[in-house]
């Protein structure tokens, strides 16, 4: 199994945020995790990338048990987490932000090639290369965050609400790029408020509610589910 999350329980102090979540991502897939605010989507991603620890169960990636692995080592295995709220390094330039995305890599020529690839997907970043991250617009910051996440050449990328705060045109654009990244061989675990868009590009979906997975299946099936339609798709 590519990514396998099994029965994870995560707490913030006394708050039991994830209550026995299990799911998996196959190689090459786009899988989406949808759910209301506070359901535990971001917590799930943080647990996979090592920022949080589960008290039970396990997280396995490409045969490695990463449940207790520090975040900085998990990246080296090929998981890249683009966190909620972009988390751009504001005092660093666009170029420096991208270089930090490639922190685990050493070959300067290959890093440069990856940077050029990011610029092909996000031409705006090339124009802004020496601008400070903190001075970018929200949409530009999202592009930079996604580009930075790609700089480690991940096998799996965890995207937390990449469309948040973007104009409809940019949302279209970012989803197009997500599909493009996927078609180049990167598996994607996508967390989205915009369930309709997410379901339209994903192959499978999990619906999460107050720390539990309440529905899972083929993205198309999930999109047809009456409860999902009612709760998340606003139909």
């Amino acid at each position, binding site marked *: 199994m590519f990514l396998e999350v099994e029965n994870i329980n995560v707490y913030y102090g006394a708050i039991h945020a994830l209550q026995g979540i299990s799911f998996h991502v196959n190689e090459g897939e786009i899988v989406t995790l949808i759910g209301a605010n506070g359901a535990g989507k971001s917590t799930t991603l943080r647990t996979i990338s090592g920022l949080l620890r589960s008290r039970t169960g396990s997280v396995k990636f490409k045969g490695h048990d990463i449940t207790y692995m520090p975040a900085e080592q998990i990246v080296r295995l090929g998981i890249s987490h683009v966190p909620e709220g972009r988390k751009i390094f504001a005092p660093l330039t666009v170029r*420096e932000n991208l270089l930090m995305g490639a922190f685990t890599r050493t070959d300067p020529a290959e890093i440069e090639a990856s940077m050029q690839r990011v610029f092909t997907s996000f031409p705006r970043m090339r124009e802004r290369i020496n601008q400070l991250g*903190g001075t970018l617009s929200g949409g530009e910051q999202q592009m930079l965050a996604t580009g930075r996440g790609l700089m480690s050449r991940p096998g799996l990328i965890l995207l937390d609400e990449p469309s948040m705060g973007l104009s409809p045109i940019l949302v279209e654009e970012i989803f197009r790029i997500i599909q493009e990244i996927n078609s180049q061989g990167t598996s994607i675990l996508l967390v989205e408020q915009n369930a309709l868009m997410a379901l339209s590009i994903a192959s499978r979906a999990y619906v999460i509610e107050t720390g539990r997975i309440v529905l899972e299946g083929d993205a198309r099936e999930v999109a047809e589910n009456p409860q999902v339609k009612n709760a998340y798709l606003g139909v």
Partner: protein
Amino acid sequence: MQYFKKTPVTDHKPNSRLAWVGQGFLLILAIIVIIILAQNLIRSPSLFAQNVIDGLKLGFVYAMIALGYTMVYGIVKLINFAHGDVFMVGAFVSYYAVTRFSLHTWAKQIFPGMPDWLVILIGSLTVILLSMVVCVLLAVTIERVAYKPLRDAPRIAALITAIGVSFFLEFFGALGFVFSPRFIPYKQPFETMSWYINNGIYPITPGSMPPDGSITFSNIFLIIVIASIFVQLLLQFLVRRTKIGIAMRATAFDKPTARLMGINVDQVISFTFAIGAAFAGLGGVLYAIAYPSIHTQMGILPGLKAFVAAVLGGIGSLPGALVGALIMGQAEALTMGYISTPMRDAIAFTILIVVLLVKPTGIFGEPEKEKA
């Protein structure tokens, strides 16, 4: 130019009237100071220049220490009060290296034919390097043992721990079998030489006095200035151009996200302490050579003044540390020259109080911005 994100020392926003009074007061103070200085400059330009040179000597030493405060604060938001004591340890290590082990002449033992100046050059560099290495090991150990376990604790806990570590180093060092509780005359690894400027530059020979109205300076003054500027440039390069330097800035800004990049935050923090300590060690040796009497509490005042310099420049800012330190050096030297020597320490802390009242973020500091 802000290298490290930082929080202001206090969060208070003076209301506009208070700020106005504060600025007015500061302006009047500045005018008085400038008038007094101008009078003295006109009365005796050479004496004034002499004070400025003495101030530069102090200021450039403070700059080396202030870098450590400002970098460590930038990355872990801790005012490392033990930093001045690391500086002290640097001075003591060089003292023992010279007196007990004659490390400053080791090259002579191995290559008897080597010219003396080369022996002393190599020997002095070895002594300085040894002090720096010991300081680095000490600071990294302090960080691991005392500060790291408190990284997620309230900031005040780490701050009080830092004060505790500082006392520990001072009083442990004062034990007879460690360093000494007394003032020790420092043995310099190389001879200090002095020159005077009076229609040209002439060396001062032992036993002779330079004519009235000359300005004197020494080789150690030149070494301090060059070393301090070199250290500044080196650090600028490190922080702006190297991968570890960029990672330091990323870590200072946002540790969880830095970890997501694959940055080992603990290593980066240790590295930051190590650099600060290396510069403190260098400063300690040069300070002891310039003011050759050492004591286990010798680090307290230079440490505190360097801390004031870092706050004055804007804590977290590297150029701020240099500018703040140079201002502190001048303030102290001019106070000694024109008011009285015992006032030198009072003036340093007066500056701290004025900065905290008028602009707590310092010269290069910016008010805390919300994270995006």
